[in-house]
């Protein structure tokens, strides 16, 4: 990422966020920032609090305490204005099942304040390899195709901040690489990206910085190289390490209890 972006206000600022579901604390005092053009990877095992954290940023879940600002706008006070700045791909891909892909692209881009005609919708679908399916209904798509549509819809309005929750789940290797290219291009154009993934390969390939979460808390944060360097002498990592060299996966497993 462009280092000059670090001197500008962050596109996402999460400060001491706490999320409770009844008696269960899902997110416990998490803070991190994302700058323009930066890709931040959120890593953590299932139940670590990644999706809960994103849900607060997306305005879907209310936080118990803490503050979220997007491009300088308080998410709690101005949720509609904040959502206008965001592109969201949810973990569970769901659209109106009876609408065609063209209708869906036009609907969701319109809801983000961007008018898209049929030709532009087809051009967008072409970019994600769905041109032939343009007039098919969403319910007729395969899982991977649904995922590609979800990504197109999330990013078509060129948001300042993109929240991508496990975007490559269910994609074949070709589509996954295309998606990686797309995310890199997006960041190159100045969009801040938050990405959750279970793939260490993906995290290392895409993310400028990683935030490792476990039991709702941040266990470590830094670039992939910094994390490996910082923890390579750690006895927990030594226990989980399988090869000669310490890998990001070794660090992740050690920090999240996977090797115990």
């Amino acid at each position, binding site marked *: *990422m*462009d280092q*000059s*972006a670090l001197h*500008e206000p962050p*596109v996402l600022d999460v400060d001491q966020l706490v999320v409770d579901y009844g008696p269960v604390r899902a997110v416990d005092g998490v803070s991190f920032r994302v*700058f*323009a*053009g930066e890709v931040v990877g959120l890593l953590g095992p299932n139940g670590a609090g990644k999706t809960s954290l994103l849900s607060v940023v*997306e*305005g*879907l879940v209310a936080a118990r305490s803490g503050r979220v600002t997007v*491009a300088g706008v308080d998410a709690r006070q101005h949720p*509609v*204005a904040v*959502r*206008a*700045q*965001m592109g*969201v791909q*949810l973990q*569970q*891909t*769901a*659209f*109106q*099942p*009876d*609408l065609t892909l063209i*209708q869906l692209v036009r*609907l*969701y881009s*319109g*809801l*983000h*304040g*961007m008018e898209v005609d049929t030709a532009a919708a087809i051009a967008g679908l072409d970019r994600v390899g769905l041109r032939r399916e343009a007039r098919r*209904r969403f319910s007729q798509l395969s899982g991977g195709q649904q995922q590609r549509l979800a990504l197109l819809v999330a990013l078509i*309005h*060129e*948001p*300042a901040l993109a929240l991508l929750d496990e975007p490559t789940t269910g994609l074949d290797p070709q589509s996954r690489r295309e998606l990686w290219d797309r995310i890199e291009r997006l*960041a*190159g*154009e*100045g*969009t801040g990206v938050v990405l959750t993934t279970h793939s260490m390969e993906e995290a290392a390939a895409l993310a400028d910085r990683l935030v490792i979460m476990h039991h709702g808390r941040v266990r470590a944060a830094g670039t992939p190289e910094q994390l490996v360097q910082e923890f390579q002498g750690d006895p927990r990592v030594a226990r989980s390490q399988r090869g000669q060299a310490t890998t990001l996966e070794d660090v992740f497993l050690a920090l999240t209890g996977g090797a115990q």
Partner: protein
Amino acid sequence: MSAALPGPRPAPSVRRAFTLLATAELAGMAKNRRSLLWTTAVPVAILVLGVSQVSGHASPGRVWAIVALAAVMGAFVLGLVGYSTDLVGYRERGVFRRLRTTPVPASLILVVRAMAALAAMLLAFLVVVVVAALAYHVHPTVATVAGGLGVMALGGLSAVALAQVIVARTARAQSATALARLVLMVSLFLTGFFIRLQVWPVFWRHVAEWTPVRLAGALLVPTLQGQPWGPTAWHDAGGLVAWIVVTGVVGVVAFRWEGGDR
């Protein structure tokens, strides 16, 4: 690369968002053949069956009574079963979650769903009236049809409001369908559809008088016949409004955007 932020894009106006959502709802309804069947074929079938049960030539008054029954039953099938199942299905599949990540007021999403269901009910009513006029030689006037649309709007809203309570109390589409069907059957039973009300105990007759299906049906018959509303009709209209307000408030207050067992 440039670190400049992609330009802020303003959220669409409420009117624009309403148009987009309503267009999508109606397009989805038009493509859903099962929904179309429920919307139009069921009331027409009830009309045809109802008139065929009349021995000899059905008088216009009798035909209008059957039109009212068919339209109201169709509206409640669509409003109670169709609306609640669709809404819980949207929530279950995550469509609401997806819509709520857009810069559109969440309440607008619900309003558009309810209005689309209402529009479908009014369309079904018009279809039944046209079929009745063509097949059974009754002659509706613009005033009676307009009055009928008004009554159907009240009846339809009461069905949607009742469905909203079902949506609030169920987590899964299957449970919503089952509960909505149960409520529908009880409502139909209480209209005297299966056993004439005259033979019921007095208490249950009073209960039956206040069900939304009966209230809407009782209000629609004189309206379609072009008769002025007397005290009984105003009593029925008041009853329907009360149903809409009470169940609407309960349904909206108890509504949850996110699924999960409760």
